[in-house]
C-alpha cells in the first residue's frame, strides 16, 4: 500500500480531509441520540435495540427506553452495534521519533513530538480506536511524560484528553546496553534525586539566612532538615521535577519489562521509590512466565501485541506455543491488549485481538474489557472513558455487527460526541475496493479540493514523512513499538 504511487500522492489530500473532520463538525450538534442499535456497554449487560444519548460531548443516558430531547440529532443505528471507543494503551506511533537517544530523559514530554498529521491517527479512527496513550517506546531508561489523546484535532492541545499521565521507565536494557547498566542507571537516577533534594534544602536554608544577613549557624544535616519545608515546587529544576512528582505518587509510571525476570526488578524499583501504587507494567511477550509474581503485585498490565509465544525446546526441538492472554485470564489478572503495529495484518484491529482471545479460550467479557475499560483504568481515566456509562466522555464506535466478528466494519466513530469517522465517506477505503476516483485535473478541481491540494503542496515535509513512514509501518515498527529489541 505504501508503495502505491497513486495512493501516496493522494495521502496528504486525504489526510487533510480527515483532519478537517474536526473542523467540519466544528460546531457539532449539542445533542445526539444513537437509536436502535445493540449496545455493548462493557460495564453492565448488553442492551438490544437501545439508545445512547449524547449531550455536549458526554453520555447522558443509556438504555432501552430513553427519552430523546426534541432538539437532539437522531442517528438510526438499528442493526448495528454501539461499542465503547477502543483504547490503544501504549503507542509511540503518533510521534516522529519513538525514543530519545539519551537514556534518562524525564524532562521530556510527548507533547513536543506529537504530529497530528500522521496517517496513524487516520488509521486509528478507521480501526475504531478513540483514545491513544501517546508514550515513548521501550528503548529508554527513563522516557518522557505521556498523555492520553484523541486521534482528531489539528494540534496536540486539541487532541489531548488527559495530560500528563505517566512517566515511562524501562527495566529491560536500552539498545546496546545491558541489564546491569540499565538497573544501575535507574538506581543512580533516584539516588541522585535524593542527593539533589538534600542539596536543594541546604541551599534553600542558606538563602533564607542570607536574606536575613545571617551566617550559617548549624551543621549541614540540620540545615537540610530546616531547609526542606522551605522548598516550593517551582524551585525544582526541569531535570528533576517529573521524577519528584513520580516519587510523590502524583504521576503514573509505565514500566517496561522485557523478560520474566524484569518483573521482579520493576516491582522492587517502584516500591523502593514510592511509585508502586501508580505503576502499570508493560510486558514483553516472555513475561507471562512471571504470572504469579504479576498477580501478587496486583498492578495493571499491558500485554505485548504478539499474543502467541513460541518457544523451541532445545532438547526435543519441538515448538511450544503459549497463548499469552489465556495465561493471564486463567490467573485472574486484568490485562490490556495492544494492536499489532503492522498495518497489513488483522492484528492491527483491537477487536480482532480480542477475538483471538476468545478463540483461544478467554471468555468474551474479559476479552472485551481488555480493549476498553482495562486500558482506561490503567491510564487512570477509567472514570472518563472505556465504557458506555452515563457521565462518561462520548467516545463510541458503531460497528456493522458484533465487534468480535471479523466481517464487522467500523461504520461510525464518535469522539467527544463528534462524529469523527464514517465509513461511507472514507475515500481511501473506497479506493482500496477499486473505487478509483476520477482523475482530478487542476482546472476542474472543486474549490475546496484544490485548496487542500495546495495545502499539501505547501508542506513537503508531509510527503517526506509519508515516505519515511513506509518502512516504519513495516517490520521494524513492531520491534520499536514493543521494545522487544530492548
Amino acid at each position: 500500500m505504501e508503495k502505491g504511487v497513486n495512493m501516496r500522492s493522494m495521502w496528504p489530500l486525504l489526510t487533510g480531509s480527515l483532519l478537517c473532520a474536526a473542523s467540519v463538525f466544528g460546531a457539532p450538534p449539542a445533542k445526539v441520540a444513537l437509536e436502535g442499535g445493540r449496545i455493548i456497554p462493557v460495564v453492565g449487560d448488553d442492551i438490544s435495540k437501545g439508545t445512547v444519548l449524547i449531550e455536549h460531548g458526554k453520555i447522558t443516558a443509556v438504555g432501552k427506553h430513553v427519552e430523546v430531547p426534541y432538539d437532539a440529532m437522531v442517528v438510526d443505528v438499528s442493526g448495528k452495534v454501539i461499542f465503547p471507543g477502543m483504547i490503544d494503551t501504549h503507542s509511540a506511533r503518533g510521534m516522529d521519533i519513538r525514543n530519545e537517544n539519551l537514556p534518562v530523559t524525564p524532562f521530556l514530554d510527548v507533547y513536543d513530538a506529537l504530529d497530528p498529521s500522521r496517517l496513524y491517527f487516520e488509521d486509528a479512527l478507521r480501526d475504531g480506536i478513540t483514545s491513544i496513550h501517546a508514550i515513548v517506546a521501550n528503548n529508554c531508561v527513563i522516557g518522557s511524560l505521556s498523555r492520553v489523546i484523541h486521534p482528531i484535532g489539528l494540534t496536540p492541545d486539541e487532541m489531548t484528553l488527559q495530560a500528563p499521565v505517566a512517566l515511562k521507565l524501562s527495566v529491560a536494557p536500552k539498545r546496546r546496553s545491558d541489564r546491569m547498566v540499565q538497573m544501575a542507571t535507574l538506581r543512580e537516577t533516584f539516588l541522585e534525586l535524593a542527593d539533589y533534594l538534600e542539596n536543594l534544602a541546604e541551599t534553600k536554608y542558606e538563602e533564607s539566612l542570607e536574606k536575613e544577613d545571617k551566617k550559617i549557624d548549624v551543621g549541614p544535616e540540620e540545615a537540610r532538615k530546616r531547609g526542606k519545608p522551605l522548598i516550593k515546587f517551582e524551585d525544582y529544576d526541569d531535570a528533576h521535577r517529573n521524577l519528584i512528582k513520580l516519587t510523590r505518587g502524583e504521576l503514573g509510571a509505565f514500566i517496561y519489562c522485557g523478560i520474566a525476570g524484569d518483573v521482579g526488578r520493576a516491582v522492587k524499583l517502584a516500591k523502593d521509590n514510592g511509585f508502586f501504587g501508580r505503576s502499570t507494567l508493560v510486558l514483553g511477550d516472555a513475561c507471562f512466565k512471571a504470572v504469579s509474581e504479576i498477580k501478587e503485585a496486583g498492578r495493571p498490565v499491558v500485554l505485548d501485541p504478539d499474543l502467541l509465544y513460541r518457544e523451541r525446546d532445545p532438547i526435543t526441538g519441538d515448538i511450544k506455543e503459549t497463548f499469552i492472554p489465556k495465561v493471564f485470564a486463567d490467573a485472574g489478572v486484568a490485562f490490556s491488549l495492544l494492536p499489532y503495529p503492522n498495518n497489513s495484518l488483522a492484528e492491527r484491529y483491537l477487536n480482532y485481538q480480542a477475538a483471538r482471545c476468545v478463540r483461544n479460550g478467554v471468555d468474551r467479557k474479559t476479552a472485551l474489557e481488555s480493549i476498553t475499560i482495562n486500558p482506561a483504568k490503567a491510564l487512570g481515566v477509567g472514570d472518563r472513558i472505556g465504557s458506555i456509562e452515563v457521565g462518561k466522555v462520548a467516545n463510541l464506535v458503531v460497528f456493522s455487527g458484533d465487534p468480535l466478528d471479523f466481517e464487522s466494519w467500523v461504520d461510525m466513530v464518535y469522539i467527544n460526541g463528534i462524529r469523527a469517522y464514517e465509513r461511507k465517506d472514507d475515500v481511501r477505503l473506497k479506493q482500496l475496493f477499486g473505487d478509483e476516483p476520477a482523475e482530478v485535473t487542476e482546472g476542474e478541481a472543486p474549490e475546496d479540493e484544490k485548496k487542500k491540494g495546495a495545502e499539501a503542496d505547501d508542506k513537503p515535509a508531509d510527503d517526506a514523512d509519508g515516505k519515511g513512514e513506509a518502512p516504519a509501518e513495516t517490520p521494524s515498527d513492531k520491534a520499536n513499538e514493543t521494545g522487544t529489541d530492548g
Partner: protein
Amino acid sequence: MIRLSRSLLILLSVASCASASAQKPDAIMAGRYVAPDGTIKTDTAIVLDRGKIHVTVARDVYTKTDNIVAYPNAVVCPGLIDVRSRIGAHDNLTETAHAIDPAASAIDSLDLTHRDFRAAVEAGITAVMLSPTENNLVSGVAATVKTARVSGDDPVLRGDGPLMFAVGSTVFSEDRAPTSRIGSAAMLREALDEAKAGRGHERMRLFSAGSLEGLVVCEDPMDVSAALRTLANGRPSIAIVHTSDAHDLAPELARGSRAVVVGPYAFGMSPRTLSTAGVYAAAGVPVVFAGGTPEASVGSLRTTAALAVRYGMDSAKARRAMTVLPATLAGVSERVGAIHPGLDADLVVFSDDPLRLDARVLDVYIKGVRVYHADVRADQTTGETP
C-alpha cells in the same frame, strides 16, 4: 600375486617359529571376547592358522600350551573399522570438476605410509574406509584398507566400492551446476536414467543394475528422504550417512537402506541427537559408527559408541556397529570384522569392554601378527601378561 603372498607367508611362518611366541601366537586365550553377535563371551581359545582365525573353542578344550598368549581378564575384540576416514589421503580427495564423477577412486590418493595410520592402530582401529570428499553428486568409489601392514598380507581390502553419493548442500556450493537442491536432484535423476538406459560410466551402470552398492552422504533429514526416493529405487542397495536427530526417519531407513552411518558423536551434542543411533537400531536399521579420522581424533569411534549406548542403544549392537557392520558396509566382511573362522586375525585386546571409555588398548594383531604392544607399566593395573 596370491601365490606369491602364500609363499611369503610360509617363509615368514617358518621364520617366526624362532621368534617370541607373543609376536605371532598360535592361539589367543581370551578371558573375554567380542563374539560376532556383539555380545561378550568368556573363556575361549581363539586358534589362529596362517594369520587367519582357524576356530574358536572353549578354553579348556584347547590343550596346547606352547606359543599361546593368554589374556585372562582382557577383552579380545575384532579390529575396529572406521568407515568415514581420510587418513593418509585427506588432502587429495577433493575433486570438483564435475558434479557427477564416478570414475574417481580413493585408492589412487592413498599413502599407506602416512603416520596417521600408526595412531589409528594404537586406538584399536585396524581398517578404514577412505572415500572421496562428498562435494559431488557422485564422487567416485571408496577404498577400504588395513591400517598396518604385515608381510604376506594385502593391506587393501577393497578398492572399488562402494560408490559415493552426496545430496546435501556441499554439492551445490561450488561455482558450477547444480546450484540448488532441486537442481542436484534433477541432475542425479538424469544420470541414473542414463545409466538405466545403458549409457554413461560403467560404475553408474553397475550401481543402477544393483551390482555396486552406494553410500549416500546426507545432511538434512529431507536429504535422506530424497536419497531414498531417488537412489534406493525400491531395493536397499544404498547406505545412508546421516547424523541428525530425525527419529521419525527410522521406519523409512529400515525399509529403504541397508545401513545407516552415524557419528562421530561428541560430548555436548544434544541428547536427542545422541539417542538417534539407539532409535534407529531398535527399529531394525543396521547402524554403523563413523569416527571421522583424522579430522576427529582416533578415539572418536569408541566415544561415539559409548555415547550411543549411554543414550539408549543396545550394547551388543553398538559393538557390532564398530566391527561386523562396518565391514559389511564396506563389503569386506568376508575378510575382516569378526572373530569368526576364516577371517583375518585382525584383533585388538582391550583391558575391558571397548564400550567403556576407560578401557585401554593392550595389543593389536594384524593377520595374527602383533603390531602394537602397550607399555608394560600400563598393564600393571590389570595384571595381564602380554
